[in-house]
């Protein structure tokens, strides 16, 4: 009976964190990043192309487009505007201030590589895809199912 209880508990513990993590989008930076926290307004500014500085260093937003669902979450939760409005805001930023558009990546591997290479880079990804990558640090949860 004890053995059976232990097996059931082990299975429950193993399964419980996996379910939310599989539908959670998190804000991530490289392990060497100076970023330790970031509020939602700053996240929005960053991905709208506005300058965001931490310790005097300009952060570089990386837009993760490896999954169509991430695109939806990006517009609904991160920048809080429709795709046409976002597109226009980005063009306005380039036109008025020479702001740079967030660099776009189309695979998780390329996002992870860019985060590892650039300590000032900030991106977002599915929590389940981070695994035990020591080169990636989670800053906050952006969206959870």
């Amino acid at each position, binding site marked *: 009976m004890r053995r059976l209880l232990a097996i059931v508990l082990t299975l429950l513990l193993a399964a419980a964190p996996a379910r939310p993590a599989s539908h959670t989008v998190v804000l991530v930076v490289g392990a060497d990043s100076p970023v330790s926290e970031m509020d939602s*307004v700053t996240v*929005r*500014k960053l991905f*709208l192309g506005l*300058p*965001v*500085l931490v310790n*005097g*260093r*300009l952060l*570089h937003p990386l837009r993760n487009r490896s999954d169509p669902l991430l695109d939806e979450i990006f517009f609904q939760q991160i920048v809080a505007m429709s795709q*046409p*409005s976002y*597109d*226009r805001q980005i*063009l*306005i930023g*380039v*036109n*008025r*201030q*020479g*702001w*740079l*558009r967030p660099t776009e990546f189309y695979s998780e591997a390329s996002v992870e590589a860019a985060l590892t290479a*650039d*300590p*000032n880079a900030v991106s977002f990804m599915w929590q389940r895809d981070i695994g035990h990558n020591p080169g990636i640090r989670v800053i906050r949860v952006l969206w959870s199912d």
Partner: protein
Amino acid sequence: MRVSYLLIAGLLLCSPLARGDPWQYEFLFMPSAQAVGTFNRTAPITEIVPQVVQVDTLFSIQRGAFKLFGEYLLSDHEGDLERFQLGWQASQDTVIWIGRYHQPTSIWNHDHHHGQYLQTSISRPFLDEWEDLGGILPQHFTGMLIESSHQAFGSWRLRTAIAGGLAPILTPDGLEPFDLLHPDSKHHQVGFQARASLHPGEFTETGFGLLVATDELPTIGLAQPPLPGLDHVDLKLFGAFGIYAASDWSVLATWYHANTQLCSPIETINGSFGVGYVEAERRLPHDLTPFLRWEVSDNAGNNAYLKLFPMMTRQRDVVGLRWDFMPRQALTVQLSGTNTLEGHFSDIRIQWSAAFP
């Protein structure tokens, strides 16, 4: 040495300060093609060019907090380096530019610049018209521009822009700004501008503000000046503006009051005039945006300075429709009725505009 070379050298000299940061760049091309037909015409001068094909090219090269930003306009009538600025992001909310900039007291030009795609109407308000198209107010300066944004009154934002730089000169062809590619600063004097506005949030365009500018505009080679021996014009501007920008409506209104002083060695003529406009835009289903603009002036017919500008518009009504028929491409048709100081005319315009990539 040309100013443009100095700015490039400035970026290269500053880049070691951003050690560890990657070089980043951005390019944006905004082509457009426009045709204009005038009718019901009594004014001797209406449009300078009946059709225009142009490409507005923006580039931004950045390393760390330093940035080289430029705008080059190439059309079938001209090619000009409109903006060329070396910028330093001094803090998250403040950027300091040196170079050639669009003066911040023109609400329209400071927001839209030269790219046709990002403005809803085809033409800009006459008070914001570019110098080489008969504009009455200086728009391009070469000097320093500081732009800032700060929290104020709780969640409101106070946005400011102050600038000082070489102002245009007055020639028989109108105002002529300092040219970065063919620099000759011999006659240009320094002008100053400031603008401050309050906005209810960080991400909204909605807000209201005040602006002020002072310029000395030397005259060169005027054949028939309104004052014999005219040496220069002192121009002082005071203005106010308001913007309401919602998802389906936007309204922009501005009013400038200008004090003018025409100076010759023996005489001075003082005067003043007012100019302003209201533009309303409504976003409808199917990516259609109708718009209306009403431009007016006060005391324009009596002002000696405005006699230097034969295309000066006393009053203009504009109505049009824009259709964003696919992402980053739009077709626009616009109808205008214009009263200049010397007559009137109507015109119809059609335009294709786009932004790539």
